[in-house]
């Protein structure tokens, strides 16, 4: 058997922006909407939007990894 057939598949750790691209690609394929649109819908309706629709659970999973958590809340100076 050729050696290549025994090789363990590689792994590529990617940044948040690459995961966002994956989210967008998947959302377009399974729902026909952009990743940004799915993120808004999911934020608005939560788990109810996952109710058995094929492919949406993975999108919700990816949302967790693409969410920008660095933004600070604006606060008024007192």
């Amino acid at each position, binding site marked *: 058997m050729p050696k290549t057939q025994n090789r363990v598949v590689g792994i590529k750790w990617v940044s948040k922006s690459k*995961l966002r691209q994956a989210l967008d690609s998947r959302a377009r394929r399974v729902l026909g909407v952009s990743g940004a649109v799915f993120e808004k819908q999911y934020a608005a309706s939560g788990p109810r939007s996952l109710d058995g629709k094929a492919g949406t659970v993975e999108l919700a999973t990816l949302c967790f990894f693409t969410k920008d958590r660095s933004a600070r809340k604006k606060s008024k100076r007192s």
Partner: protein
Amino acid sequence: MPARNQNEADNNFAHYFRESLSVVTNAVVTAGREGDERVLLYEPPVKLQRKQGDPLFLSVTQTYRVKPHDGGFKATTTSYSYELSVKKDGLLEIIAAFHWHPAKTAKLKWPHVHIRGNTAEGDLGRKHFPTARISIEDFLRFLIRDFDVKPRPEYAVWKEILTRNKREFVANASWLDWKPLIS
């Protein structure tokens, strides 16, 4: 035995997963992280060769968390999605999807399978048929046995990989439970 540090636990978990996948594909796994949570996935789905019939497409999304355990560290699965698709009129159509995502859906915490099928009862795709916890090794064996997916290594090699990694999965399981699946 727990890993000595977070990196070791992380690498061990990803290695088993990648080694099992290598039985049916050579596609590189994409990985991401957020805090102590990790995700391993294929996007777009990868094409699987079959002994006969049109190609199938595999999509996996698995998340896990690395946490302190017994004086060391351990990686624990937090959700999975193993999906099988076929190409129809140029578009991928999901025909079966094994899911477990307890943190995402408070009223649906049990492992389940969605099967695309139009019956007298209507479309079954939105039903959540309860299953046991399915490992990636179980799912790959299912593809090889029932869908004629062609393993890349020879019989003795792929069988040994999937058996060994499933054994490891069960030995480290923190989910063995007698409670009813659906409460």
